[in-house]
């Protein structure tokens, strides 16, 4: 069987995480959540670094800093929504009547 981009694509899609797709999937849900949060944090740190460099006058282009901030903001939004979903699910379960 030949290797086609589409068959590899589905494999890669299954293996990659939502953010960068370059870390090995960890087994448990908490681990997955933790690594996703770490990536959000990394994006925030890199955005902060770029803005600091820009303000110091030795940094990247303006658009590079702006895009970095935008990426961090979008990743945080996604993280926040996932967190809301998780907390919502927890509350649903905790309200179960026995």
């Amino acid at each position, binding site marked *: 069987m030949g290797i*086609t*981009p589409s068959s*590899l*694509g589905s494999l*890669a899609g299954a293996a*990659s995480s*939502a*953010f*960068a*797709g370059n870390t090995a999937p960890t087994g448990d849900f908490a681990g997955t959540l933790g690594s996703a949060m770490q990536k959000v944090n990394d994006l925030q740190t890199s955005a902060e670094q770029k803005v600091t460099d820009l303000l110091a006058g030795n940094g990247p*282009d303006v*658009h*590079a800093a702006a*895009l970095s901030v*935008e*990426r961090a903001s*979008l*990743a945080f*939004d*996604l993280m926040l*929504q*996932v967190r*809301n*979903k998780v907390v919502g699910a927890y509350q649903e379960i905790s309200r179960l009547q026995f």
Partner: protein
Amino acid sequence: MNLFGVMGISASGLSAERTRAEVVASNMANAESTHTAEGGPYQRKEVVFQSASPSSFRMQLAGANGSASVGGVAVRSIVSDAAAPVMRYEPSHPDADANGFVAFPNINPVLEMTDLMGAARAYQMNASAVQAAKQMIQQSIELLK
């Protein structure tokens, strides 16, 4: 292509157009420069773009298998326009030759202005693509709400 693929491609476009605007600005600023480090008048510069090699492994694989691949743009080189300088009679000028002629850069303000407008509009276009990508991501996040 991951979540921020469009943004990365558009960012390369923004960088490239900024470089183009920089080159045009240099041409405009040096329109009267009769002296350069290499000797002779300033030579008009032009920027050459090339499509950057696809960044992700999946895209490269797709390209190797014969399907079209997408990627950003990169500045290949900045080349000098070899057009002959404009000779102007200014005998009192320190760079004048024996006959009193001074070699000025062959720069056409109209050409530079249109190039600058093109760069500004292309920058705007890439910025619009970033906006569109951002809205697409935001709308996907909205699905979770």
